[in-house]
């Protein structure tokens, strides 16, 4: 196998060697020792390599180049390089995509923290994650079958520098392996295959590695996710994720039998029943639903440092099946929103955890900022495509909230990082919404007031008008009569006081005021009576009757007043006074009752 591989390459090898010499001459870097690990235990291919880079060149170098094979490069989701320092664990390095002429593949230029002097060595850790590189084979399986996948890669580290020594270690999902390429007589131990060590591998060398093995881990892919973050300055950040989920493993062939699925443990072993989504610890009001309502099969667990949702789709996901759901929650804004005067900064995750080892094919982030936010500036941890800004209208909005739209393809767990949005917001604008509500209610009540007070009818009903006039007059009469009756009570009080104090002056003055007021009231009532008569109402007669009765009452009051005077003067005995007072009171009661009767009749 090995011979065939090198033999095949021989013609081009010379050419490459020549170029390699140039390259080495250019920066003189050599991979002294490479330890590659291919983790294929999930549906991702996580390739990490620890490279000991040595500078055998003439001058110190500032950067070195990473390379990816051209058939893997399109599937690259994440690449990161870090320096293994002595104390600090990871010191991640800045990467920049470049190209090398005459070479296929994708290249990244890694900026070193400090120049690598001649003869010095540096241990660099390169981490890459590839998605959709494990292809199910066979591509269609029945419910009882297990899922087998094929991985095709490179035995060697693809590098623009020659490699002195390297090992490759492949971790699989299970012990069952159908076949694997046997370059250099690899050793297989349970789930691990170890290749190498390979010595003195030239630069840009490739050798096809192919592993066909059983992998029943959930092949879940988020084909699209829209993450909407709505910031409110009233203390809340609402997050909603609309997720399209697909099982990208081997497609289910033939029937789905619920009986087998329920009764046999290994039936549909590659299917996905549920998974866990980890939300921020302060997440509240979590909802999990789709177009036709709440998905009742979920569970929520509040842990100390996170909220864990057991997301269980309505149905188990077999290969090729998909589902769609919405998950949303609220966060308190004080944990994510920072402010300095009018300056605001929102620091949140650009994309959050959906399930372990997640793959997101297409991410759309929508950031809805409060109405009136200006000078918006978005800082992302990795490049992301900004769409045109939009406007969003929701409760009590007038000119719309600015919406930032950003999209990115092919994301994995490593992309769960914070972004920062800076914007300015005038705090006065906070008052806008309450004022709107106040204004709306004000207008409402004002309209009602105007409507009730004004007459909008286009016709006039004379009869109704007369009725209303009469009603108002009678009301006036009633109040006046009652007032007059009240006067009598006042008089009684005055008399009683007089009986105790024996001060005839006050009595006389009280009597005078009573008389005066009574006259005024009686005159008023007579005037009203005349008006009633003018309106042609028969109530005038009743008012006249009331007047007559009232005259009698007044006589009685005067009489009782005189009686009391006489009592005080000692002209009558107490007993006779009491009896006469009683009869007077009785008469008065009777008269007042009759007046009341008449008034009721009004």
């Amino acid at each position, binding site marked *: 196998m090995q011979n065939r591989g090198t033999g095949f390459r021989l013609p081009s090898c010379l050419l490459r060697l020549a170029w390699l010499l140039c390259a080495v001459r250019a920066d003189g870097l050599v991979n002294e020792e490479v330890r590659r690990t291919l983790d294929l235990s999930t549906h991702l291919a996580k390739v990490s390599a620890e490279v000991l880079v040595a500078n055998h060149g003439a001058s110190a170098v500032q950067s070195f180049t990473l390379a990816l094979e051209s058939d893997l490069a399109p599937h690259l989701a994440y690449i990161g390089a870090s320096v293994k320092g002595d104390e600090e664990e990871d010191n991640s390095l800045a990467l920049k995509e470049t190209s090398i002429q005459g070479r296929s593949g994708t290249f990244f230029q890694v900026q070193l923290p400090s120049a690598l002097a001649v003869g010095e060595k540096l241990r660099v850790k390169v981490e890459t994650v590839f998605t959709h590189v494990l292809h199910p084979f066979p591509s269609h399986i029945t419910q009882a079958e297990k899922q087998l996948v094929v991985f095709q890669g490179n035995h060697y580290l693809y590098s623009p520098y020659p490699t002195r020594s390297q090992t490759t270690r492949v971790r699989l999902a299970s012990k069952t392996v159908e076949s694997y390429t046997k370059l250099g007589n690899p050793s297989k131990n349970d789930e691990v295959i170890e290749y190498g060590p390979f010595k003195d591998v030239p630069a840009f060398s490739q050798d096809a590695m192919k592993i066909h093995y059983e992998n029943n881990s959930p092949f879940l892919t988020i084909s699209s996710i829209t993450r909407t973050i709505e910031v409110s300055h009233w203390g809340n950040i609402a997050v909603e994720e609309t997720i399209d989920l697909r099982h990208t493993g081997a497609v289910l062939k033939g029937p789905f039998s619920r009986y087998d699925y329920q009764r046999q443990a290994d039936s549909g072993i590659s299917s996905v029943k549920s998974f866990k989504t980890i939300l921020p610890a302060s997440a509240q009001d979590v909802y999990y639903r789709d177009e036709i309502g709440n998905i009742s099969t979920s569970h929520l667990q509040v842990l100390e440092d996170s909220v864990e949702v057991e997301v269980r789709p309505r149905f188990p996901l077999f290969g090729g099946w998909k589902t769609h759901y919405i998950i949303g929650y609220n966060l308190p804004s004080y944990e994510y929103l920072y402010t300095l005067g009018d300056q605001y900064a929102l620091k949140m995750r650009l994309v959050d955890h959906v399930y372990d080892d997640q793959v997101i094919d297409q991410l759309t982030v929508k950031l809805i900022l409060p109405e009136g936010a200006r000078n918006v500036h978005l800082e992302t941890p990795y490049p992301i495509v900004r769409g045109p800004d939009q406007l969003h209208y929701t409760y009590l909005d007038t000119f719309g909230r600015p919406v930032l739209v950003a999209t990115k393809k092919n994301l994995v767990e490593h992309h769960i990082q914070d972004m920062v949005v800076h914007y300015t917001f005038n705090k006065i604008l906070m008052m806008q919404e309450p004022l709107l509500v106040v204004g709306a209610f004000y207008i409402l009540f004002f309209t009602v007031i105007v409507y009730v007070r004004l007459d909008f009818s286009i016709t006039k009903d004379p009869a109704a008008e007369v009725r209303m006039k009469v009603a108002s007059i009678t009301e006036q009469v009633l109040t006046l009569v009652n007032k007059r009756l009240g006067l009598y009570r006042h008089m009684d009080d005055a008399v009683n006081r007089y009986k105790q104090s024996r001060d005839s002056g006050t009595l006389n003055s009280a009597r005078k005021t009573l008389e005066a007021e009574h006259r005024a009231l009686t005159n008023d009532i007579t005037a009203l009576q005349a008006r009633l008569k003018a309106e042609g109402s028969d109530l005038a007669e009743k008012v006249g009757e009331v007047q007559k009765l009232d005259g009698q009452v007044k006589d009685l009051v005067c009489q009782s007043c005189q009686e009391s005077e006489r009592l005080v003067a000692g002209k009558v005995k107490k007993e006779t006074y009491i009896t006469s007072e009683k009869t007077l009171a009785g008469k008065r009661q*009777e008269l007042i009752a009759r007046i009341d009767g008449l008034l*009721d009749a009004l």
Partner: protein
Amino acid sequence: QNLSFQLNYPHESSASFSPNMAEHHTVSECKHKANPNAGGSLSGNGLSGGLTQPAGWQSLLSFTILFLAWLAGFSSRLFAVIRFESIIHEFDPWFNYRSTHHLSTNGFYEFLNWFDERAWYPLGRIVGGTVYPGLMVTAGLIHYLLNLLHVTVHIRDVCVFLAPVFSGLTAISTFLLTRELWNQSAGLLAACFIAIVPGYISRSVAGSFDNEGIAIFALQFTYYLWVKSVKTGSVFWTIGCCLSYFYMVSAWGGYVFIINLIPLHVFVLLLMQRYSRRLYIAYSTFYIVGLVLSMQIPFVGFQPIRTSEHMAAAGVFALLQAYAFLQYLKDRLTKQEFQTLFFLGVSLAAGVVFLTVIYLTYTELGCLYLYSVYAKIHIPIIASVSEHQPTTWVSFFFDLHILVCTFPAGLWFCIKNVNDERVFVALYAISAVYFAGVMVRLMLTLTPVVCMLSAIAFSSVFEHYLGDDTKRENPPAEDSSDEDDKRNSGNLYDKAGKVRKHVSEQDKPEEGLGPNIKSIVTMLMLMLLMMFAVHCTWVTSNAYSSPSVVLASYNHDGSRNILDDFREAYYWLRQNTDEHARVMSWWDYGYQIAGMANRTTLVDNNTWNNSHIALVGKAMSSNESAAYEIMKSLDVDYVLIIFGGVIGYSGDDINKFLWMVRIAEGEHPKDIRESDYFTPQGEFRVDKAGSPTLLNCLMYKMSYYRFGEMQLDFRTPPGFDRTRNAEIGNKDIRLKHLEEAFTSEHWLVRIYRVKKQENRQPLEHKLRSVLAKQKYTSKKKGKKLNKKSV
């Protein structure tokens, strides 16, 4: 002025404000009536002492009570939302929701032109022309307005909460109608009744997004405006009535009830010699404008001048014109001339009426027989719907509780003090009782009138017995003469509200009753009302608040399990089948499949095409290969059935199966015979003793496929059907042309995929199969033609 007034009677001002609600009604009500011209009552006692403007208090109280009624009605309809979620219930609401969704996304005109190719495959359905659009337009309009104000509510929530909101409007229109019929206190009671009565709640809980939810409001409001226009004779009110009638026509097929009841009212008024110019104006305007407006609804079209159920209105219109003409002539002619003319006219009119009646009876007179006639045409289908069954006595009590006992009393009050509008309510009551007796569903039309009449009865009783209560609360009198006076004035004050004379007559016997009996009666009445409220809440909570899309079961410890199988399966269909896949199922699930799964269905709850349904029924009840032929001809991709044998759900397809057989037999008597599905003893059994036809028909096979292996618990043998409590008779079921595509967690919904034909099959039987197919389709076409010409 106010100040001195209050100073004068400080000790009496706060006397009679007890927290009793009913008392408030009475008192405030009386005041209202007492002072129509006075504007305010100022007697020596009573509550007006502290209330400077009784009219203000009164309107505040009415407003508060109506608002509370609305609130109570709204919140008691939310059981399902609180227990489950904001979800559309049952079957028909899913269609309404789907069309509302279509309306709100595509606009009104697009909705009117909507041809739904997802229903009745391969026929499709012109939705815009075959629905009453009122409901969708109402919900769509509310949604549109809210969105215009940037209240971003989802259309689903608008739909879910539409019926509870409209129940408040119904309460208000019932209040208005009852106020016109009797008085304000009765109106308030009626509003409270209708807000919580189960008979109406059954159709208007949150999530029950159905025509009836808004139609009852439109019905009550139309009647209110009609009564108002008869009372005033003003064109303004009549036009209002017509608009409201138009809304009703656009909302519900039950508008036929209005267009028959109002002419009936006019007719009876004429018979009672109660003709007046007001009546003439009201009815003439109503008939013409209402007719024109009702014909604007595409689904109604020319029906109002064509079909028999609208003819009574036309006949009465003609009669009224003739009558009015005679009245006019009466003024112009001498008595002698008039008499001859009168006889002539009467005989002519009688002849016309006679002919109309003959014609109407000949064409099966409309309204009275409308529903039963409808049922007769489509017998098996209509009869198979549970809500079309005749009403039992229990359900009267269940839905109306105490009101069903008290409303005859109210009716008696109305008839005893009859006037134009009370004639109307009497007719309303009588006809509604009849309809409710015919069909459970029409309990709905009975409910409002029962509420109104019961409110009248209760209100009258309370007026008699509570009126004196207020008096007793006054401080007991010192002198006998004094007391007499006071009582007199008090009575005058309290009782002046009664416009009716009999109250003063009844004053005397009441005085003989004494306070004890009065308080006992009052207590009894209040207890009845309390029990009514308790019953209403209980019924609402237990009987009418299940979405039926989501089932719930309770464990021994009270915790709840949600069985969400329907949505599980529908959502599977929605996500994991081809967008244009055709799903065959029994018609009950058509709307749900269209709404939740968004897939094409063959038949649905619209049930307009009996032969199509029969074809599906035939496929379900044939053996697998015969069914496969039918399914092939109908391009079926999936078959969906409901199977309750695992969890003991009784509304499943095996229990409905006989209806499928019957409907199929109606159209295909040669192929399907109901007797084949019974044992020789005439039993319908699924166990070994069952008939072989049943044990091998498609429905049976699909329901019990692989169920024979399943052992639910250790006490029962494998394949034990919990719904029918029987061990199934055919355990070894093999499917040749179908395969299991999906089964929900509790096996409630099972979906089968119809396999495509294998490649070699057409080669082998090429000639034969093609011939058979041709024959088959031509046969079908012929049948359809026949059907149409009949």
